[in-house]
């Protein structure tokens, strides 16, 4: 039984969901509902208390909570209802959303268009195959961030961090400032995917060593962690015998990447991309199921929230056009990852383009003095030079609408050419 029908239903009130809802509203859709499982909107930004957000979008450096508040204020000013404490349990291909909340119980809501904006989660320890015992004291860096910044608990006193992604670096500083001793940040790759700024201001400032080309080979402790062994790795990432060093610690933080949270997406029968772990979408962020759109970290992992907001506003606009019957189109090109490129979004481009198309992807390594190229039927349709492409930074490549006219149906390949470098 359907309890309620709405025009656009948004799942998740992080920056993605909020930007999508506001854009749909601005485009004239007045029946909008946002569902959020936490007790307040804002998403993961609520726990990112450090500054550095919003430089692209607002031209100033905000903290995470400040950035989130701007979108919350915009949504409230537009009168968009946000129902918190409401967890979505499933989404059907027919756009019926099943959700539950303590206040309203179990409900089924149907919608003309659904926007998936559930964000991502951290890669758990199981997915990393770390060796050793299963003792307490091992956390993902984001979980530790939540404990320290939102719940007021310190996860431990002597800390080793595995992985040098930005969240791990930020937590190295956070834990140090709260009185913990961070012994080392251990990275298996010969370079860090974290921002230079975070390496300088979160590690170097506090004399925390960054061990590149190293990994954790043993984890010790019965109930609580008592220590880890760290060893250097060779070119194929295997530990080199004889290079082991022991660290006595009570806490190990894992900062080993994020994965889109797509249980609801696959439950709706939506096609997922193995490269991004998110839905396959076209240039308007519509998934393989008509009327269901995806944006933000649930679609592909972003490093800059500014791009999340931009992409999600486009998805919100497209959803609103869809319910007015303006969404008719045919898929014409599929976008394929070439050498040096991983996880290009969108994966499909349709006919009848109204705007240029912006491709987003991850470089598969560090390239200097490089160029990104998009090609179809042997013809170059876009090119962009850059002093550097790194895996830690999403790359963008614009295809002009005109460049696609006259290009026959088929595939578009994106690749990066340049000097491959480490570090």
């Amino acid at each position, binding site marked *: 039984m359907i309890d309620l029908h709405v025009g656009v239903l948004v799942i998740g009130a992080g920056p993605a969901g909020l930007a999508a809802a506001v854009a749909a509203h601005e485009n004239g859709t007045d029946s909008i509902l946002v569902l959020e499982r936490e007790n307040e909107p804002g998403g993961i930004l*609520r726990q990112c*208390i*450090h*500054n550095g957000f919003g430089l692209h979008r607002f031209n100033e*450096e905000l*903290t995470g*909570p*400040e950035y989130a*508040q701007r979108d919350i204020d915009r949504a409230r000013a537009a009168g968009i209802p946000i129902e918190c404490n409401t967890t979505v349990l499933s989404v059907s291909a027919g756009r019926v959303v099943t959700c539950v909340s303590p206040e309203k119980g179990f409900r089924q809501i149907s919608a003309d268009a659904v926007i998936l904006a559930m964000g991502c989660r951290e890669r758990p320890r199981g997915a990393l195959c770390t060796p050793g015992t299963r003792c307490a004291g091992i956390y993902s860096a984001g979980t530790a961030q939540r404990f*320290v*910044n*939102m*719940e*007021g608990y310190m996860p431990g006193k002597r800390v080793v961090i595995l992985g040098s992604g930005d969240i791990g670096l930020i937590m190295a500083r956070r834990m140090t*400032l*709260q009185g913990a001793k961070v012994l080392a940040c251990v990275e298996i790759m010969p370079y860090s995917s974290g*921002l*230079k*700024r975070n*390496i*300088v*201001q979160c590690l170097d*400032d506090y004399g925390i060593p960054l061990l590149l080309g190293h990994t954790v080979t043993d984890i010790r402790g019965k109930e609580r962690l008592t220590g880890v062994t760290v060893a250097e790795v060779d070119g194929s990432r295997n530990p080199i015998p004889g290079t082991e060093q022991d660290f006595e610690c009570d806490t190990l933080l894992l900062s080993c990447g994020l994965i889109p949270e797509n249980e609801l997406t696959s439950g709706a029968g939506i096609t997922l991309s193995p490269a991004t772990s998110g839905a396959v979408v076209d240039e308007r962020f519509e998934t393989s199921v008509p009327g269901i759109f995806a944006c933000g970290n649930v679609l592909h992992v972003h490093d800059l929230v500014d791009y999340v907001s931009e992409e999600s506003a486009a998805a919100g606009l497209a959803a609103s056009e869809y319910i007015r019957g303006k969404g008719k189109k045919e898929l014409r090109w599929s976008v394929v990852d070439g050498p040096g490129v991983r996880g290009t979004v969108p994966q499909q481009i349709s006919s009848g383009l109204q705007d240029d198309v912006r491709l987003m992807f991850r470089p598969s390594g560090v390239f200097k003095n490089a160029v990104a190229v998009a090609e179809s039927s042997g013809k170059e349709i876009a090119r962009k030079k850059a*002093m*550097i492409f*790194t895996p*830690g*930074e999403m790359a963008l490549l614009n295809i002009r609408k005109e460049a696609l006219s006259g290009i026959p149906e088929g595939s578009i390949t994106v690749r990066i050419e340049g000097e491959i470098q480490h570090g």
Partner: protein
Amino acid sequence: MDKVIICINCPVGCRMNVKLAEDGSFLSVSGNTCPRGARYAEQECTAPLRMVTAVIPVSGAAVPLSVKTSVPVPRESIGGIMKQLSLLSVRAPVSQGAVIVSNILGTGADIIATRNV
């Protein structure tokens, strides 16, 4: 005196060589690709500045209050600022932008609330 520092202003991460006088004052920089690097090198070698963010406990709310310095402060004042913040607690409600401590440790920076509680 020579010092090697890495520019943090963009992903290129230029390695720069900075020459400093005996008294620590800035003489010259090389290795930067653009002027932003030179400006950063001088600031960073003579008077490094940092933003400080932290949380403080709130009576009457389940979440702590996140705060920041209104402007970057000298790096060596971070420890003192954290110590002073650890002694604080505030009472809800507090709104974003409220000044919690003004001119902390004489740095000229205020401690500002970054969320509503």
